[in-house]
């Protein structure tokens, strides 16, 4: 067992699955010789050969299309889109075909494929490298959208994603790729897809987050505890389909909810969670549903990026507003 980062956990999970399942193949831009721009696929080509770890041209629609074709024939492709900002040429393949194949063939063909993409801001990257557009895919029936928040979850959920009989969009919060390490045993044990993880129990408010923002959310919960406010923290982990039961159960216990997301506020995953709470747990609400999010604007470059990102203070401030709400 070794202490590894989130990105190394992704690598370990893929390597594990390639080791036990010949059908698993990896491809994408720079995933082979280079090992991926973030080193997600580092060493895989050496270990599993050029037949199974394939460098592709810079053509995302083709990458998704190949994955669909392979998966329809029973292979288990793990395709990389180098940054989520460049997934949109592949959107037609993903939305119009990948997500619909099971339905279109009335269950005859399923697509056991994973499309990986680093996403989110906070690393001073250029344009189109920092967006959090998980809501676009969360809206599409037929796709699972999974976002790990720490190394263990990256490992467990990646294994589950590869083993799942249906397509999974696996979004990796690149800001926290190397921010911390977990001791992970490479035992091939997967994590449940489609479930929230209650990372901290509390009684006054439910903080709901996913991906990189979970780090700020947990810090906020720590800080709130010193102020006598007991916050429950939920890692959504699978933003689609949503495990809304766990969220509602918690909100009905605490009476308050605050959603923390990096994405712009409008039309986001947080909007859906807020709507579900309002629809199903209204009678338990002691305060409005709070949302701490990015702004409804293009995420700025380097210099203003810090201003854009939701911070611990923002969460603490909003939670206090909700707890003191009368």
């Amino acid at each position, binding site marked *: 067992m070794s*202490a590894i980062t989130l990105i190394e956990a992704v690598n370990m999970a893929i390597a594990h699955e390639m080791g036990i399942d010949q059908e698993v193949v990896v491809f994408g831009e*720079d995933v082979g010789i280079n*090992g991926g*721009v*973030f*080193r997600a696929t580092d060493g895989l080509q050496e270990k599993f050969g050029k037949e199974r770890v394939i460098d592709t041209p810079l053509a995302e629609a083709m990458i998704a299309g190949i994955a669909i074709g392979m998966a329809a024939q029973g292979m288990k492709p793990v395709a990389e889109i180098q*940054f989520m900002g460049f997934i949109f040429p592949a959107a037609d393949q993903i939305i119009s075909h990948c997500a619909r194949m099971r339905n279109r063939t009335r269950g005859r063909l399923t697509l056991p494929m994973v499309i990986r993409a680093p996403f989110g801001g*906070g*690393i*001073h*990257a*250029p344009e189109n490298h920092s967006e959090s557009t998980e809501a676009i895919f969360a809206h599409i029936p037929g796709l699972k959208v999974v976002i790990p928040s*720490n*190394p*263990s*979850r990256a490992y*467990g959920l990646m294994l589950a994603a590869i083993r799942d009989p249906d397509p999974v969009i696996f979004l990796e919060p*690149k*800001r*926290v*790729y*190397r*921010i*911390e*390490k*977990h*001791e992970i045993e490479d035992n091939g*044990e997967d*994590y*449940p897809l*489609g*479930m*929230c*993880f*209650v*990372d*901290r129990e509390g*009684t*006054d408010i439910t903080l709901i987050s996913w991906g990189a923002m979970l780090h700020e959310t947990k810090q906020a919960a720590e800080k709130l505890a010193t102020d*006598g*406010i*007991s916050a429950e923290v939920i*890692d959504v982990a699978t933003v689609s389909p949503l*495990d809304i039961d*766990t969220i509602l*159960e918690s909100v*009905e*216990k*605490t*009476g308050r909810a605050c959603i923390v997301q990096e994405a712009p506020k409008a039309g986001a995953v947080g909007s859906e969670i807020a709507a579900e709470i309002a629809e199903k747990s*209204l*009678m*338990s*609400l*002691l*305060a*409005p549903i709070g949302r701490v999010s990015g702004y409804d604007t293009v995420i700025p470059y*380097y210099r203003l990026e810090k201003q854009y990102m939701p911070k611990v203070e923002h969460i603490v401030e909003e939670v206090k507003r909700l*707890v003191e709400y*009368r």
Partner: protein
Amino acid sequence: MNTTNSLKIFNLPDLGEGLPDAEIVRWLVKEGEKVELHQPMVEMETAKAVVEVPCPFAGTITKLHGQAGDVIDVGSALAEFDGDGSLRHEELPDKFELTESELAKSEVVTSEADSTLAQEISQQSAGQISANEVFNLPDLGEGLPDAEIVRWLVAEGQVLELHQPMVEMETAKAVVEVPSPFAAKVAKLHGQAGDVIEVGAPLVSFGESGVLSSSSAVVPPVKQDEPDDNKPADAATVVGAVQVGNKVVLESASAVIKALAKKLKVDLTQVSGSGNNGAITQSDVKLAKKEGKLLGTKKAVFTPVTSPNQLLNDENPLDFRASPAVRAHARRLNVALSQCAASGKKGTITKADVDGVSNTTSNAPASSSSAVVVSSQSASQSIVSKSVQASSEPQTVRGVRRAMAMGMSKSHATVVPTTLMEDADITGWSKQDSLTRYVRALVFASKIEPSLNCWFDGEKFERIVHLNVHVGLAIDSPDGLYVPVVHDADSKNAMQIRTRVQELRQKIESKGLKQEDQQGATITLSNFGSITGRYGSPVVSPPQVAILGTGRFRNELKLTDKGIENRKMLPLSLTFDHRACTGGEAARFLVAIIEDLQRAE
């Protein structure tokens, strides 16, 4: 590309993205202006960025090709200079066209950053070294304000060749090797590994000869990474500045186990752990699933946890179901939710419930003291009460509602009520008007046991046992409780009774009920079951001595001679004034009612 020694044409170089052309945004110099080497000359816009192009020569500008807005092809003439002789290296303009070959030499990883860098470097290198030349950090290609020194590849005092890799710089996007712009001796390295150098700030000072003294102390060519900066050796192609931490954090194992158990519907209380210290592992949960240790289909009951904050108040707001608006309303009226009835769906406290508490002092809680409804409307229709207008102000009670209040008070002050309850089995009924059946049963029972069809005067201790049966019907209306009378019910057939009930109902709706319509009742019927309620304690209206309440009928499994049968049961509640009747009389009266009701028709 240069023509003569003195006249030089500067052609537009590739600005770093392999694009075929660029647009002039604005000129920063004029024709005839004397310019220095590297002085900003023009802003060019490519598809990706606006780039400032510096003067490649010192001299006088003789011609500018194009104006703002013009698109210039790469390789076409951009500006012409009249060399003043200070520049001897006529090969320089060609350097811009050497970008690709420089690229190859510099071994930079990210192509995007790469060509721009080489570009910048070559722009800087356009000047031949003079003594003690300082090389400033160029923009490494992303318009970022600074870059971090990863490691020096050269040492002070070392003599470098042109393009020899000098230093590795990390920008937000890439680690880039910066080649030497000169063939010269390094006089000073500005900064160490880990230092952040701003674009435009000195990076390396060069000296022409080896006369550098104090600073010639040996600087290790490769500096070690800072110990706690656990930068992987492969960070070379990482795009952007990913924060690196070396802290080992524990996964919340229980969160994962709970999530898995929930997904598999496993009851964790039945699972024994095989992990360290009896911890439950994922395998334990999966095994429990196989063994069928599942949660019941019932939703887990949650026990509200009281937080320290909530302990300050004596009630936990989450013990009550109420919408935020109702909670706010209760706060405004200073009403505790624990005091409120919960008449809404699933035990929700409604705004009316809050108002009910707020008004208790001024308004009699009429609804709880009387069973009041006779209606042949369907339950769902009559459930919606349009009579109540919520308001925090006291409302004066008038008219029918006041009459009800007075009547009830009188009853409460005088009558000694006793209520007897029993069910009638009405399985044999075919579809028919239940109200007429109830009236008929009252008539029948009154013949059998007349002492309940009676008026009683408690002051004189007199009673009148009536020959005829005049049945009062309790009818709920927005204005309050009406009790109009079906007179001589004993001489009316079902059709006539039905007609009279219709007539009375219309009169109530049109507010045309006459005094005589409401007088003379000898016994009363309250059909609260048309809304809901199994048994009740209807209130006798003096001088009458009895009232029959009919509840909501239900299906019930009954043990009969034939075994277990599904029977349709009608719950009955008979209240009588014990001053006027004995329990025996009342019980016999109820038996007669049941006997009549149980006739299959």
